[in-house]
């Protein structure tokens, strides 16, 4: 997406501003800067985050250390380290799908909705068999979750292909629809009949055939983590080795060239939105069957939106997304610790994550443009 704008205005007759600082488009995005900017953005976020924490009356260094150090190396790290996988897996799973679309200039903003619908379908498929036990139930739930997320993403995809409707707005509207659907499900159709009238479904953790249990106990390694790893490999191979991945990259960087090259834009929209919906649905399904356990009104915690930050922080690159997903998971866990130990408000972490995206986008300037100091030369 970034390179679509690059160099568009080269060759303009107008003389540049006679400012001391000039910005020149690079002929090629800088490879060094592409790797350096995410690191720089994290450092800047830590600094400004520290300022924010200080403004909230917390010791800034202590807060930063609590967020980034405590979960991995602190006294209770044995408890927090598995959380890294549990929170990182859905983020990576969703972000991988989003990145495919973002690369092609297809903006699925509604992953949160697809995540919810995937969870509802997955849990619904499992609960339909309650209390029967069979090894087939869990694979069926996986299938249902993936299909649910896929179908929810197909709504904006088909509307875009058929009618040219803006996929950003439609996919986002569907998040709010999905949230209402979630409320309706946890109060109605999927409500636990033995739940004493409380909203929320049966707990899938207590239903062995449907439980997405840890594969190796105490590691946080559940099937969602496996799925995330498979998705990363799939996306990596697709983007670097497959014709379709090439079509995605060309469409993002030069849409006209892609059209002349025989890329079918409609099919690409269906594929990118479909895959991202499918992965988001899977993430929701693994979450509801494992760490969360049940469908409830406040089941979703914004992974679908945070995954957008993860996708950008990972530079829309599958391997980068793994690192970014783990880092973001760290801020969630560290944020929880800082909340209980230092009384840091939960919203402060949200601001912190938003800040990270800001710095990342601002610093992208250094990748695509060269900043020159000194007066403009006469060409």
């Amino acid at each position, binding site marked *: 997406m*970034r390179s679509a704008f690059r160099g568009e205005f080269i060759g303009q007759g107008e003389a540049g501003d006679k400012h001391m600082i000039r910005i020149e488009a690079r002929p090629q995005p800088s490879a060094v800067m592409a790797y350096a900017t995410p690191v720089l953005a994290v450092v800047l976020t830590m600094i400004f985050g520290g300022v924010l924490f200080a403004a909230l009356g917390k010791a800034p260094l202590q807060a930063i250390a609590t967020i980034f150090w405590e979960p991995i190396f602190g006294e209770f790290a044995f408890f927090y380290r598995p959380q890294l996988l549990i929170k990182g897996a859905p983020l990576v799973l969703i972000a991988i799908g989003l990145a495919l679309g973002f690369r092609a200039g297809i903006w699925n903003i509604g992953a949160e909705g697809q995540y919810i619908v995937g969870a509802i379908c997955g849990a619904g498929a499992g609960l339909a068999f309650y209390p029967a036990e069979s090894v087939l139930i869990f694979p069926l739930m996986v299938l249902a979750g993936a299909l649910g997320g896929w179908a929810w993403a197909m709504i904006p995809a088909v509307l875009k292909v058929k009618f040219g409707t803006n996929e950003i*707005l*439609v996919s986002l509207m569907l998040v709010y629809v999905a949230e209402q659907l979630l409320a309706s499900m946890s109060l109605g159709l999927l409500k636990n009949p033995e739940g004493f009238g409380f909203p929320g479904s049966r707990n899938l953790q207590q239903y062995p055939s449907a439980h997405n249990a840890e594969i190796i106990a105490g590691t946080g390694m559940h099937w969602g983590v496996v799925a995330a790893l498979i998705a990363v490999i799939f996306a990596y191979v697709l983007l670097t080795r497959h014709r379709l991945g090439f079509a995605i990259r060309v469409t993002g960087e030069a849409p006209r060239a892609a059209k002349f090259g025989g890329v079918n834009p409609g099919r690409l929209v269906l594929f990118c939105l479909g895959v991202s919906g499918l992965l988001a649905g899977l993430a929701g399904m693994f979450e509801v069957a494992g760490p969360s356990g049940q469908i409830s009104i406040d089941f979703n915690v914004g992974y679908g939106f945070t995954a957008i930050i993860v996708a950008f922080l990972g530079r829309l690159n599958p391997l980068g997304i793994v690192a970014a997903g783990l880092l973001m998971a760290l801020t969630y866990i560290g944020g929880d610790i800082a909340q209980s130990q230092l009384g840091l408000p939960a919203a402060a972490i949200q601001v912190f994550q938003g800040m990270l995206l800001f710095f990342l986008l601002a610093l992208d300037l250094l990748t695509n443009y060269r900043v020159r100091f000194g007066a403009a030369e006469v060409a």
Partner: protein
Amino acid sequence: MDLSAINPILLIAAMIAAATPILLAAIGELVVERAGVLNLGVEGMMITGAVCGFIIAVNTGSPTVGFVAAAIGGAVLSLLFAFLTQVALANQVASGLALTLFGLGLSSLMGQSYVGIKPPRAEATPLGPPADIPVIGPIIFGHDLMVYLGLGIVAGTWAVLKFTRMGLVLRAVGENHDAAHALGYKVKRIRTLAILFGGACAGLGGAYISLIRVPQWTEGMTAGVGWIALALVVFASWKPWRVLLGAYLFGGITQLQLNLQGAGVAIPVEYLAMSPYIVTIIVLVILSADKARAPGSLGRTFHASG
């Protein structure tokens, strides 16, 4: 179910009030988009305006000061977007999303000690006696000042875009930024001003929700109104008067479903609450054929290389 509990006159009056936040946010975004910038951060600016307005109104005791603060709050947040897209030349879609995510976090951080507080009440019927006229009184004269201010901003925007040199320059920048630049117009400066105007309007719209519509502060209380406003600009084909029409349509649906919830219709509350979003999608589908009217440079980054 008791539909007779719904008073049609009060319903229409309430629809107009329900439309006001959408109207304010949408007219601001319309100006931004006519200048060729797509700011997806409307939701973030609205919620920031909502919390700024609420905090200041509670502390000063004056809703008016609250609204001014909301406009400033929205504009300050939009300045971040202006910096990202006009100075750092970042992608507008990503920057707008960042603004929304950041605004949602920032607002809940700012507002956490204000949950459950009642704001000072704005004067309900500033126009006085005419509001007592049967039927047309409540519908036309019975509103608070912000409703009329919203209408005034729409009319003003229409007039400025259509009849003034300033409006012409703004549209030129939006239609073709290279040509406007070649003519000597400061593309970035004009766009930055448009973005600030959009931020201020979104802020006002947000404060209307937190100070008058609800009136209290809860996290994420704008609940997608900013996104509906974005859809509305497309719906309106970038024309101010059609924004007004669209806002009343969406305000109407929002209000109607609330009234139906209150009247105890057999449809579950959740499905009624979905309706504004579903209607938005349907309208977007019907009107997406009309997209040729979008400003020519919408969403494209401008950089004059020397």
